[in-house]
């Protein structure tokens, strides 16, 4: 199956190890969530995959071919990142035009349509766009580029709730009708948790979780209720962490639910964001 393979990638910046022997596979036609705290190494990893910076060791393969300095492989990937590398004075519509030159499958009409939906004036120069519209412009390109693998680094940075909602809908609609691989790197875990299929969690440059959301979240459950009751229940169990508020307590348990749960305890699914926080707190 076609995929992007990241093999033993390590990157150091001086004394800091930003990416530590990372191994991941991104299969085609799936939506991935790449989650990590600030400085965990997400952006560095994405920059390495897309040939913007070089790893100290390891390799990135796109459909079996080494991606580094390889035009053919790089044509299959697109990265939408926080930093804008388009010339400041270029107009949005000209960016569309040039993107089509470099990525022949770029759908200019679709991009124009999206620009209207987001109320983005395509005659504006890049530098004149606010943070929000800068993100909008970049995510429009990412949604229109039609490469087999698309990486989105903080796609909804600075977007208001309405536009974020619109983005997710557009992404899902596009993915449903024309599946490709999308990797979303974001801090807004709650928003993406139902959109992504697989989740990769990075902590301090290392991959700590790399599996489907379903499998990850089904590994445990949450119990909430009276603090004393919860405490007695969780004794001896594998606890990921707890939250307390006065006499009420929630505990995040790894393990299978027993068939007879004590009365007075509210059971719910593991929540991806809460799970993430517990996993990545130092």
């Amino acid at each position, binding site marked *: 199956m076609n995929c992007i393979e990241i093999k033993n990638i390590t990157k150091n910046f001086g004394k800091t190890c930003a990416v530590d022997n990372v191994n991941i596979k991104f299969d085609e036609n799936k939506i991935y969530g790449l989650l990590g705290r600030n400085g965990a190494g997400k952006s560095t990893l994405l920059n390495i995959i897309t040939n913007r910076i070089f790893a100290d060791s390891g390799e990135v393969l796109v459909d079996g071919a080494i991606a580094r300095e390889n035009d053919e492989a790089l044509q299959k990937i697109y990265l939408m990142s926080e930093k804008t590398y388009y010339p400041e004075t270029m107009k949005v519509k000209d960016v569309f035009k040039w993107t089509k030159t470099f990525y022949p499958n770029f759908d200019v009409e679709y991009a124009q349509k999206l620009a209207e939906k987001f109320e983005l004036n395509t005659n504006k120069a890049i530098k004149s766009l606010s943070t929000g519209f800068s993100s909008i412009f970049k995510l429009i390109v990412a949604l229109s580029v039609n490469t087999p693998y698309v990486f989105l680094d903080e796609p909804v940075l600075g977007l208001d709730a309405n536009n974020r909602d619109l983005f997710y809908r557009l992404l899902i*609609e596009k993915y449903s009708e024309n599946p490709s691989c999308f990797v979303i790197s974001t801090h807004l875990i709650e928003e993406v948790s139902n959109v992504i299929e697989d989740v990769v969690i990075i902590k301090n440059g290392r991959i700590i979780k790399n599996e489907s959301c379903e499998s990850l979240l089904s590994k445990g459950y949450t119990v909430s209720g009276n603090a004393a009751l919860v405490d007695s229940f969780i004794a001896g169990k594998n606890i990921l962490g707890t939250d307390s508020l006065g006499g009420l307590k929630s505990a995040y348990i790894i393990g299978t639910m027993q068939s007879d749960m004590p*009365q007075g305890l509210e*059971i*719910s699914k593991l929540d991806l964001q809460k799970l993430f926080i517990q996993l990545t707190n130092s």
Partner: protein
Amino acid sequence: MLIDFSSEKAIFIQIAEGIEDGIISGSFKEESQIPSITEISVQYKINPATALKGINILVDNGIVYKKRGLGMFVAEGAVDKLCLTRKNQFYESFVIKLIEEAKKLKLSEEEIKSMIERGFDK
């Protein structure tokens, strides 16, 4: 159809049940089209694979079927099939829970019975 994302029940099951409810209530008539995977996943902002999983349950149970190039349609006899299944589940889904709650509130069997009668009179 409302999805409770925090519920213990998996999303794809909620989708399947939501469509089943629609079929039983008559919102989706037999041989009529149900929303597509794309429509469902966009509406609830969920991954299409999840929606597909839910629909596949219905397909496996013969509740809906796929017309090539057109979409998913409610199968003939789906309503009867569903009512039968639901009737069998009624005891587990509702009665047990009702009795549990009643016991919690210390309601007697007689009180429950009269409440039920009151409900049917309405």
